[in-house]
């Protein structure tokens, strides 16, 4: 329409409405032949534009606009708008995801925090974590992120599409655990794990789960923000707004895992309570072990869940291999059942024997009369089972730290052995009885009941002696004798019987010489053990020269064996121990720097042995101990930085171990040593706060171990030593009252222990230090005399003597 025509038309309209303002507009336009519908409101006319304008869908940020072009909106949620975009800066072709976070950060502090967190996420480079390509906050305070575009389905859809079975789902979960562990170790939480946040991407044709959509503002230990998390997946503590940590993610992972295990038709059920999930898992006949794993993950109490993704991964691995899971470990029946699976040679015997064992155990305790009518063969069978239990089971139980079960096994063995009539035994019977007594003694030794242990070893010896008189298999006799002597040496040394210890170890070595002369191919492990023990013994009694000779023998034996079997995990392990021994020698009698070299050598062997046998926690424990030792050596050599590195590594390894074997007190105790070494390093550096924190960590472990097993003197001693460290530091930072209270506690703890084991020099030492701190000088003097006798007067005591102006030193 021409301008004049329009103006003419407008004048007409103007005039018409002036004449009659009641005109109905639609009809009026129709009469005029105008088909255009008159505009009335923004919302009816340009709603899309309005939405677009006020939804911040445009790339307002210059930085973004220059690089990316939005292809389409993928998702719009309460917290963010997500777009698929193409890189448009001509650098290279790439599809990315741009995410605008609804939350605005207007204050500089919040912006700073957001950017720091972005940096944290950007630093998480892992194939299982979506990569952050770019990110910033617009001038209007709106944060945006550019993320790698993962081209794959949500994990639940993937599992359904490919009809994955439990084993394949477990495989994906293990990958996910690895990723989570990686993320958690960097103190990052996901906080919103659910199927739609886990995509399955094919990496070189292999499916791999990728975590997307990390919650923002998510440093560990912060209070949870209710806007994060998704119903059904959020852990109770998250819903309650309490402090969340990595275990909150593990809860969500548990729900996710459970869901993936369900039948396809049940996966969409709303399982807003763990109990419902559990019931559905049961109904769908999911393997019981996996049901238990899910139940453990979704426990209400975070402390009842798996304590790390690594621990879960380890269990899933165990499950795939058919090994017992971590939480089965406290059930002896399960350990037994799975032990059978792992030892095909023993299974027939064991299945038969298990039945007879129950039968006999009941019989032995109830019907002594009947026992005497049993044939020798039957008895031997039972003994064999007892030995099997004490041998193989012992390893398993020790590994998982179930000393209570060991104790009951030991008691039953003793009850069983005591009821034998020695006159009915043949040679085999005596050998078996000897072995059973020796193994029972080992258990008592482990339980630190040295007199009980000694009693058992003597009984074993008497059975061996009877065999000897009958002129039996001498190889068997001597190797059993050698083993027994090594065991005996361990109970003697803590009772400080210098001559006796040396004598039994020499006898062990002699016995093994006989064995090897008779059968040169015989396993020489016991010989090596005896030499190792003897070396330590000689060092303990300051026989430097003799110790050196024995150490050289030990090292060359282990090296020779390794040359014959270069990939044997146990001899690699033995080599590691041999160099560890040498390192201690260097510390006490030789050159500290050489000692450090030796520890490093020991670590190399330790790592090689782990490589050959990755499942054996004992070998991993060994490596950790060595890092502890290395830290201690560096500390002695005043290389603080190296010491710190070593001890922090030991702590790291220890945390992994604790996660894998949560019941093992020995692992925990060693962890406590790491903590106290770290404390010492920080104390030396003058960082008293950090020092106190580590000492306190160590003290916590000791306290826990002691609480679990208050009859264990060694645990009491550890608790005492750690308490003294903390109390001492408290004194140093001026908290005198707290320090005194702690000293009194140690006194109450150690007095009865010292009374019971008066010969133990370590217990006496701890009590002496305590008494000096408490200024109970009369009692202290008695203990001091013992310390002098035991050569236990160290710097700590000397300093205390000076401090209290006591003129006791000669």
């Amino acid at each position, binding site marked *: *329409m021409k301008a004049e025509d*329009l*103006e003419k*038309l*407008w004048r007409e*309209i*103007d005039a018409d*409405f*002036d004449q009659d*303002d009641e*005109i109905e*507009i639609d009809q*009026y*336009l129709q009469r*005029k032949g*105008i*088909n*255009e*519908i*008159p*505009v*009335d*409101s*923004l*919302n009816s*006319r*340009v*709603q*899309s*534009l*309005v*939405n*677009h*304008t*006020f*939804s*911040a869908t*445009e790339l307002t940020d210059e930085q973004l606009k220059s690089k990316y*072009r939005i292809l389409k909106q993928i998702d*719009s949620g*309460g917290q963010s708008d997500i777009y698929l975009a193409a890189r448009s800066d001509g650098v290279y072709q790439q599809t990315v995801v741009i995410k605008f976070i*609804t939350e*605005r950060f207007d204050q500089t502090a919040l912006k700073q925090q957001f950017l720091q967190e972005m940096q944290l996420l950007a630093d998480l480079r892992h194939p299982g974590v979506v990569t952050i390509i770019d990110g910033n906050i617009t001038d*209007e305070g709106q944060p945006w992120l550019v993320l790698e575009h993962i081209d794959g389905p949500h994990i639940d859809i993937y599992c359904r599409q490919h009809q994955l079975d439990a084993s394949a789902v477990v495989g994906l979960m293990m990958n996910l655990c690895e990723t989570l562990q990686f993320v958690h170790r960097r103190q990052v939480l996901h906080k919103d794990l659910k199927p739609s946040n886990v995509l399955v991407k094919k990496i070189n044709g292999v499916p791999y789960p990728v975590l997307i959509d990390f919650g923002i503002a998510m440093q560990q230990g912060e209070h949870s923000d209710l806007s994060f998390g998704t119903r059904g997946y959020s852990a109770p503590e998250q819903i309650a707004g309490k402090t969340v940590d990595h275990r909150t993610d593990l809860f969500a992972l548990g729900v996710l895992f459970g869901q993936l295990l369900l039948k396809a038709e049940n996966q969409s059920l709303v399982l807003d309570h763990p109990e419902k999930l559990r019931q559905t898992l049961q109904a769908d006949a999911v393997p019981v072990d996996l049901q238990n794993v899910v139940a453990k993950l979704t426990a209400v109490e975070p402390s009842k869940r798996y304590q790390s993704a690594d621990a879960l991964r380890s269990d899933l691995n165990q499950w795939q291999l058919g090994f017992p899971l971590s939480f089965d470990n406290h059930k002896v029946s399960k350990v037994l059942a799975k032990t059978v699976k792992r030892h095909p040679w023993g299974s027939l015997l064991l299945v038969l024997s298990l039945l007879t064992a129950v039968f006999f155990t009941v019989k032995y305790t109830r019907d002594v009369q009947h026992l005497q009518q049993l044939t020798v063969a039957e008895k031997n069978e039972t003994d064999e089972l007892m030995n099997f239990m004490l041998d193989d089971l012992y390893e398993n139980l020790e590994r998982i730290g179930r000393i209570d079960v060991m104790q009951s096994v030991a008691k039953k063995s003793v009850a069983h052995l005591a009821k034998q009539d020695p006159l009915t035994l043949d040679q085999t019977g005596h050998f078996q009885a000897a072995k059973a007594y020796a193994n029972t003694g080992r258990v008592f030794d482990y339980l630190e009941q040295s007199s009980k242990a000694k009693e058992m070893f003597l009984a074993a010896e008497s059975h061996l002696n009877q065999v000897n008189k009958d002129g039996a298999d001498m190889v068997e006799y001597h190797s059993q004798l050698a083993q027994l002597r090594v065991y005996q040496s361990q109970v003697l040394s803590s009772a400080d019987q210098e001559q006796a210890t040396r004598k039994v170890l020499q006898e062990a070595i002699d016995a093994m010489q006989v064995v090897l002369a008779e059968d040169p191919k015989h396993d020489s492990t016991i010989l090596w053990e005896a030499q190792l023990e003897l070396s330590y013994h000689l060092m303990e009694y300051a026989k430097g020269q003799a110790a050196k000779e024995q150490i050289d023998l030990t090292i060359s034996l282990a090296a020779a064996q390794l040359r014959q079997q270069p990939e044997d995990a146990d001899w690699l392990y033995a080599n590691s121990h041999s160099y560890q021994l040498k390192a201690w020698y260097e510390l006490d009698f030789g050159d500290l720097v050489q000692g450090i070299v030796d520890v490093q050598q020991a670590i190399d062997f330790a790592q090689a042995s782990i490589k050959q046998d990755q499942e054996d926690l004992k070998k991993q424990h060994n490596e950790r101990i060595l890092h502890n030792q290395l830290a201690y050596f560096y500390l002695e050599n005043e290389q603080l930085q190296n010491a710190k590195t070593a001890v922090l590594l030991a702590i790291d390894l220890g945390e992994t171990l604790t996660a894998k074997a949560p019941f093992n007190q020995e692992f925990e105790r060693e962890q406590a040593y790491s903590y106290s070494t770290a404390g010492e390093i920080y104390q030396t550096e003058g960082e008293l706060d950090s020092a106190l924190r580590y000492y306190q960590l160590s003290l916590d472990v000791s306290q826990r171990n002691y609480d679990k097993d208050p009859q264990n003197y060694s645990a009491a001693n550890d608790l005492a030593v750690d308490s003294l460290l903390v109390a001492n530091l408290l004194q140093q930072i001026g908290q005198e009252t707290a320090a005194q209270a702690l000293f009194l506690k140690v006194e109450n703890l150690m007095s009865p222990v010292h009374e019971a084991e008066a010969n133990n020099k370590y217990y006496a030492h701890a009590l002496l230090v305590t008494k000096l701190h408490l200024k109970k000088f009369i009692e202290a003097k008695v203990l001091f005399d013992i310390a002098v006798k035991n050569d236990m007067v160290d710097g700590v005591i000397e300093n205390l003597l000076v401090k209290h102006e006591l003129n006791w030193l000669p």
Partner: protein
Amino acid sequence: MDQQDLTQLLNKNQSNLSAQQQQDIEKIYQRLKEIARTQRFKVKGTGINTTALVNEAWLKSQNTDKTFNDRNHFFAYSSLAMRHILLNEAKKNRLITFVDDQDYAAQPVFKDSTYLLDLETQLVKLKAFDVRLEQVFTYKFFGDMEFTDIADVMGVSERTVFRNWKKARAMLAAAMQ
């Protein structure tokens, strides 16, 4: 912001605002955007209701700054801001349709943008024809103000406002057919 400022602003060419005026509009824009966000947050899936938006903005401005002491003036000003905002947005979008794939031109938001740009062309003409018609249209269409409130702001009768609204709509329909 008083009657005089508002009139002055209304009389000005929309594309020729002073720095201060641009800042004021930007401020309102930001506030509207913020509110739009929370609104969308509440009712996910539905579009943004501009009326509710401006109402909410008024309530907020009462709680925070007191630049506007008169509700009607605030609404009038918001109408202008809204017009300005949408126009800018539409211009930006049309630029995209010029350079990008034709697919985008088919999307509703780009159709809306073209429509609004056409409407703006006619509004400029309408202003030249009768400035009061253009003002009434702006208040009602962009600000969704009540007729009685527009009458109050413009100092005329409600009936006149209603008549002018009808005239403006009819004229624009005629112009855009």
